C-alpha cells in the first residue's frame, strides 16, 4: 500500500511538472504574441518608415558574448527603418553545423546569416547564398578593403559583405626578455624585425631563462598553432599563395619552393628546441598569459585578454618578415561576413540590414564596442589617423589594408583546411617537409576533384 502511494505521488509530481513546464512555455508564447501585436500596432503607426511592418530573422555565432553588442545596434536599425529583426545567436561549435543542415535542406528560416569568410566560396557554389550585386552599387563595394571584397566574392559575383576583419601582431613577454638581458629592437610596419632576428633573440633568451628546458618556456609560439588561418602566413610571407586562381589547383602552389622553405624554417624552430611541441591552439594564449612564452604571434584580441588577466609585462611589434622577403609580408586576415540565404523571403530588407551592419552606422557601432579590425577602407583610415586608437589597432588596420592575404578561395575549403591543418601538425612533429607537402597535394587533388 505504501509503495503504491509513493508510486502514485511520484507519477503525480511528474505530471504536474510536465504541465507546469508546458504552461510556462504557453505563457512565454502568449507574452511573445502580445509583444508582436504591440510591435505591429507601433509599426502600423510608423508607416512612413521604409520597411515598416516587415520582419527578418538574423542568425550568427557569438552566443553568450555578442548579444550585448548587437542588440542595441539592431534596436537602432529597427527604429530607423520600422522593421523587426529577430536575432538568433549560436555557439561557434554548433553554428556551422546547424547552418549546414538548414541551408542544405533549403530552409527559409533565416534572412541574414553570418558567414565564416573561408566558406563563402563553398556556400556560393552550393547555392546556399544569393549574390548581392543588385543591392550593392560599385561605390558601395569600393568601401570595403580589397582583401575583404575578394574574400566575399566567388566566380565574379559578390556574395558576402564583411562585418569586420582581423589581423595579427608579434606579442612578446618583456619580463622574460629583461631577465635574459635581451632587448627587442624598435620596429614598425616599414622597418620590421625579421623572423631570423626574432629566432636569434628567442634563442638568447631561452639560454638564460630556461637553459636546461625544465621550466617549459617556449621561445616562439603561434597562438592558433597548426591552424590554416594562422600558419599559412609563413609561406605567404615568402610570396607563396594559398591555392590556384581557379580555387582547385594545389600542385605547384602548396608544394612550391616558398612553402618548402617556410615550412622548413618552422620545423627547425621545434627541432632546435626554440618552440615546444606540446602547445595547442586552445592553450597557447593562456600559456603566454602565464609568462611561459617569449614571443607569440596572435590577434588584436590579445591586448584585452592580457589586460583582463592583469598581465602588464608585454609589448608588441608588427609581424616580422623573412630576410630577403621584406616586401612580401603576408598576414592572416578575414573574420565574419554576412550572407542572404537563397530562400530568404525578404531579400530587400535583408540586404538593407546587411548594408547597415557592414558599411553603415551599425558597423561603426560594432567596431567601437567590440574592438575588431575594420574591413572598410574608411574604417582603416579612421584608425590610422586617430589620436585615441591604440597603437596595436593602428598596426592591425595597416596590415588588414596592406599585407593581408585572404584564405584559400575554394568551394572545398573544409577539405583544404582539414588537410593543411594536419600537414602543419605533421611538419611540426618532424615529418619530412617535402613529402608532407606532396602528400597534402595528392590528398587535396583527390578531394577537390569531386567538387569541380
Amino acid at each position: 500500500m505504501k509503495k503504491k502511494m509513493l508510486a502514485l505521488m511520484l507519477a503525480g509530481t511528474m505530471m504536474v511538472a510536465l504541465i507546469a513546464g508546458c504552461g510556462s512555455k504557453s505563457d512565454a508564447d502568449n507574452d511573445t504574441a502580445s509583444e508582436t501585436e504591440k510591435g505591429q500596432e507601433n509599426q502600423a503607426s510608423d508607416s512612413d518608415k521604409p520597411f515598416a511592418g516587415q520582419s527578418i530573422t538574423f542568425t550568427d555565432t557569438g552566443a553568450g558574448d555578442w548579444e550585448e553588442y548587437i542588440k542595441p545596434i539592431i534596436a537602432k536599425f529597427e527604429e530607423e527603418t520600422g522593421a523587426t529583426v529577430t536575432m538568433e545567436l549560436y555557439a561557434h561549435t554548433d553554428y556551422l553545423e546547424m547552418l549546414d543542415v538548414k541551408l542544405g535542406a533549403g530552409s527559409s528560416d533565416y534572412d541574414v546569416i553570418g558567414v565564416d569568410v573561408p566558406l563563402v566560396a563553398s556556400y556560393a557554389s552550393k547555392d546556399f547564398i544569393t549574390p548581392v550585386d543588385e543591392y550593392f552599387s560599385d561605390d558601395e563595394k569600393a568601401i570595403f578593403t580589397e582583401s575583404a571584397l575578394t574574400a566575399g566574392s566567388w566566380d565574379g559575383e559578390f556574395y558576402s559583405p564583411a562585418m569586420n576583419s582581423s589581423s595579427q601582431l608579434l606579442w612578446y613577454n618583456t619580463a622574460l626578455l629583461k631577465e635574459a638581458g635581451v632587448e627587442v629592437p624598435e620596429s614598425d610596419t616599414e622597418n620590421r624585425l625579421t623572423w631570423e632576428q626574432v629566432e636569434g633573440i628567442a634563442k638568447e633568451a631561452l639560454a638564460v631563462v630556461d637553459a636546461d628546458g625544465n621550466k617549459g618556456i617556449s621561445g616562439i609560439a603561434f597562438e592558433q598553432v597548426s591552424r590554416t588561418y594562422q600558419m599559412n602566413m609563413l609561406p605567404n610571407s615568402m610570396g607563396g599563395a594559398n591555392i590556384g586562381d581557379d580555387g582547385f589547383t594545389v600542385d605547384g602552389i602548396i608544394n612550391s619552393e616558398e612553402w618548402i622553405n617556410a615550412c622548413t624554417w618552422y620545423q627547425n624552430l621545434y627541432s632546435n628546441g626554440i618552440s615546444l611541441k606540446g602547445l595547442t591552439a586552445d592553450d597557447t594564449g593562456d600559456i603566454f598569459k602565464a609568462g611561459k612564452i617569449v614571443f607569440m604571434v596572435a590577434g588584436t584580441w590579445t591586448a584585452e585578454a592580457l589586460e583582463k588577466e592583469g598581465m602588464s609585462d608585454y609589448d608588441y611589434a608588427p609581424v616580422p618578415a623573412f630576410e630577403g622577403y621584406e616586401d612580401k609580408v603576408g598576414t592572416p586576415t578575414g573574420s565574419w561576413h554576412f550572407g542572404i540565404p537563397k530562400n530568404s523571403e525578404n531579400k530587400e530588407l535583408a540586404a538593407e540590414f546587411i548594408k547597415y551592419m557592414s558599411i553603415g552606422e551599425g558597423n561603426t557601432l560594432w567596431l567601437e564596442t567590440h574592438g575588431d579590425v575594420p574591413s572598410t577602407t574608411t574604417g582603416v583610415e579612421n584608425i590610422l589617423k586617430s589620436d585615441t586608437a591604440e597603437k596595436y589597432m593602428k598596426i592591425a588596420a595597416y596590415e588588414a589594408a596592406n599585407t593581408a592575404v585572404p584564405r584559400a578561395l575554394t568551394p572545398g575549403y573544409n577539405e583544404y583546411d582539414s588537410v593543411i591543418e594536419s600537414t602543419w601538425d605533421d611538419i611540426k612533429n618532424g615529418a619530412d617537409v617535402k613529402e608532407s607537402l606532396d602528400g597534402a597535394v595528392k590528398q587535396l587533388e583527390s578531394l577537390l576533384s569531386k567538387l569541380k
Partner: protein
Amino acid sequence: MIHLSNKRKWIPYLLIIPSFSLICIFKLYPIFTTLVESFIVDSQFTFSVFSELFKDDAFWNSLGVTLKLNVVMIPLQIIISFGMALLVNSAVKVIGVFRTIFYLPVTISLTVACLLWNMMLNPNSGVINSLLGIFNIPMQGFFTDKNQALWCIIIVATWKGVGYWMMFLLAGLKNIDAEIYESAKIDGAGWLKTTFQITLPLIKKVLLFVFIANTTSNLLLFIPMQVITGGGPQGSTNVLMYEAYKSAFKYGDRARSSAIVTILLILIVAACAVQALMLREKEKS
C-alpha cells in the same frame, strides 16, 4: 518455464515491441540507410564509391591502422580483464575496495579520460615525462610521436575499459561451483591447469560475449583520435571510424563515409563470426 495460454501468447511480443522498435529505428534503419547511401548514387546502383575508395591511399592507411590497433588491443584487454577478474574473485577481506578501484575508470567519460591523459602525456609539461626525467630517461613525444601515438591510445583505451569487461568475467567466475575447484585440487591440479582446463572452458559463453562486445567497441573507437590526435601524427592514428567522420562532417562526402562504415560493419561481422566459431561449445559425441 512459463507456459502461456493461447489467449495470452501475444503478451511477450507486446512487451518487447518498444525495445525492438528502438533497435529498428536507431540501429537497423541507420545500417540500412548506410548501405543504401554507399551503393546508390544519383538514384543508380553503383560500385563507384567503393572503387574510388579502394584507390585512395588514405583508406588503406586507415584500414591498416585499424587492424594494427585491434590485433593488439583486443587480446590485451581480454587478458588483463581476465587476470583482474581472477584476482578480485579471491575471498580476501576488503576485496570489494579493489573491485571498486579497478572499476573506477569505467565511470569517467572517455572524453574526459582522453583530456586527462593528453595532459599527463604532454611532451613539455606532462607528469609522465617529469617522472621519466627522474630516471634520466629522455622526454618522449607520446601523442606527438608517430611511433608512439597509437600505443598511447591503446594504453588509454585499455586503462578505461578493462574494469568493465572484468565485471562480466567476474560474474562468469562467480557462477562456477566451488566444488569443481575442490575436486581439481584433490586430483592434484595446479593453478595453471585449473585455469586453462577448468575455469576457461566453464566461462566460454561469457568469454564469447566479452570478445564480441569488446571487438565491436574497439573497432568503432573514435574519441581519442578526435579529441587528442586528429588522426595524426602523420596518419598513424587515423582509424577507419575517424576517416568516416572526416568524410561525412568535414568533406561533406556522405557516400564515402557510408562506404567506410559498410566496410567496418563487414570487419566487425567477420571478426565476431571467427570468435564465435573458435569459442563455440563443442557438440557432445
